[in-house]
């Protein structure tokens, strides 16, 4: 049963940039662990330290108690799908995998199996230079799977995949993680980093939330969401009166985006107040907190790129717009959310 443990993991780039700051986390086998955080939160740096590509300034991240570079044949233990990983444009996909298989002492049979797994059998003898982004991403996954690893690390795997590709990847990761549980005790570890929360919410079982290189939260997604708040949004021509009425009833209320939002309110509480005050209602929506709003609460509303299904309200906000859940944060400059944004 594999384990991944980070203790006091710290990475400083130069003098000014503290990318990861005394990070402690555990990745739990048998499920998918989501590494979530805004751009520059230290997700990629953390994963690259796990994989021995970046040397920690201090602290450690260990796989089964070993550093990655001390694993005898890491290809057979850990598979990695990385964003900035490269391909020689003139080399064919099959040869690309054969090179890695040769390094790891794996039979070429695995190359064909993995090409088949990701649906690149047909394209296997084409030069990677002509591959689309999604094909390259799948080839990366094929490379990661060569050694039948029991730890799979994926950095922003959904990037470049079309909706079908993302759906396929989601099923694949779920199956991969659970398959391991059947094969051996405890199962496999899958770590997926993502800034697409709506996407992550569908895949992950556990979350590690990073912000400014620090751990903001860790735990089972369900547990984290269980204690979450509810809110009610109302569209009305009498916004000011409603806000006043809600305030009189000791409920928080604020006007936002043409709606009156009542944090922590329920329709049962808000409805009678509106009737009592004879306030005209055009629309009323009740929502529980999603991973997204939880995330904003945890990270203090740093700049965040939203996924295709944008949040519980379904309305679309631009990159770096203020978060809906914490109006105070929108007065801060979200653009400054960098590796040291949380400090």
């Amino acid at each position, binding site marked *: 049963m594999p384990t991944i443990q980070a203790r006091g993991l710290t990475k400083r780039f130069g003098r000014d940039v503290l990318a990861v700051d005394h990070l402690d986390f555990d990745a739990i086998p048998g499920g998918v662990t989501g590494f979530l955080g805004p751009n520059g939160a230290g997700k990629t740096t953390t994963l690259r330290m796990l994989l021995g590509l970046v*040397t920690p300034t201090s602290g450690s991240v260990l796989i089964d108690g070993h550093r990655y*570079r001390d694993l005898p044949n890491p290809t057979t233990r850990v598979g990695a799908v990385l964003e900035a*990983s*490269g391909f020689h*444009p003139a080399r064919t996909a099959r040869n690309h995998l054969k090179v*890695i298989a*040769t*390094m790891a*002492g794996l039979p070429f049979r695995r190359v064909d199996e993995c090409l088949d797994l990701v649906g690149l059998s047909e394209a296997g003898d084409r030069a990677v230079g002509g591959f689309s982004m999604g094909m390259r991403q799948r080839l990366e996954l094929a490379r990661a799977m060569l050694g039948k690893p029991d730890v799979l690390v994926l950095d922003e795997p959904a990037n470049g995949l079309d909706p079908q590709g993302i759906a396929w990847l989601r099923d694949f990761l779920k199956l991969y993680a659970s398959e391991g549980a059947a094969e051996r005790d405890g199962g496999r570890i899958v770590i997926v980093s993502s800034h697409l929360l709506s996407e992550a919410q569908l895949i992950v079982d556990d979350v590690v939330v990073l912000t400014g290189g620090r751990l903001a939260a860790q735990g089972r997604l369900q547990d984290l969401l269980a204690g979450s708040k509810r809110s009610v949004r109302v569209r009305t021509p009498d916004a000011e009166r409603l806000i006043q009425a809600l305030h009189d009833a000791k409920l928080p209320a604020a006007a936002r985006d043409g709606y009156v939002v009542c944090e922590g309110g329920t329709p049962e509480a808000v409805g009678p107040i509106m009737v009592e005050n004879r306030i005209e209602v055009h629309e009323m929506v009740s929502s529980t907190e999603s991973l997204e709003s939880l995330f904003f609460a945890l990270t203090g509303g740093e700049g965040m790129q939203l996924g295709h299904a944008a949040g519980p309200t379904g309305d679309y906000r631009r990159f770096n717009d203020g978060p809906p859940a914490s109006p105070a944060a929108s007065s801060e400059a979200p653009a400054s959310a960098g590796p040291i944004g949380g400090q």
Partner: protein
Amino acid sequence: MFGLLKAEIRKLWTIWSTYVLFGIVVLIDLAFGFGLALAPGGRHGGSAGIVPHGSSQWFVNVFSVLDVSRILALVLGAIIITGEYRHKTVTPTFLAEPRRGRVVMAKLGVGFGSGVVLGALTMLTGLVLGFVLVALKVHSCMTPFGVSQGMSQALCGVRHGAYYVATTHNMWHDWWRIAPGVALGTGLFAIYGLGLGALLKNQIVAIVVGLVFTLIVEAIIGAIWPTIGEYLPGQAATALEDAARTNFGGGTTQLLPWWGGAAMLLVYGIALAFLGTFTTLRSDIT
């Protein structure tokens, strides 16, 4: 380690640029060789004037230009390591073998082997060139344009038969005095290029620095301070060619003994690669 060596060979021979590089070497060899053979006088003929066609000195001159291929071995060596950074294949490489020193060692081994193959290809090209040049000379009297008939044609045949035997003898002799040295020098120059690549990491920078130093800086230093010049990579590689000591340029160039040249080149390559491994290659792959 065996797997790493095989993987490096596979990396090299699964991209077309390697084949192009080897093709360029053959083309350059042929162009330089023919150019020199057909030009009056030779590269090292210098003040001695025109060297007679087919003489031993003539063949030494023709073959000695073939060591230009070591420049391309330097490029090959540099590409072997900097190509990984350029195309970011260094990430999957170091994921599969995180002990980076071992990767560099495998690259040094394969770089040396490929350089030797490149040198051997060069000398084969030289041999073909030599035979073609001899055949051209012999053929010139046999052509219909010569209008030699009967007795005169027989005489021509005997005369040129003798010429053929004598010149090919010279050719073989000189080829053996140069070929092994060029092949070894080319192999070692690939290691030198690899060392430069490991230290400089950037492909263009490594190649430009290597070429400028070898073709310009070394020539200047060699001309001003020959005692220093003989220890520099280019002269060290020339020292590997047996004929260089006795036949090139009438003793104006100072050269190390062949083993000294080989040792110097090896020191350059290994030292640079070692430095590169402990500086550049240890750095983070982001």
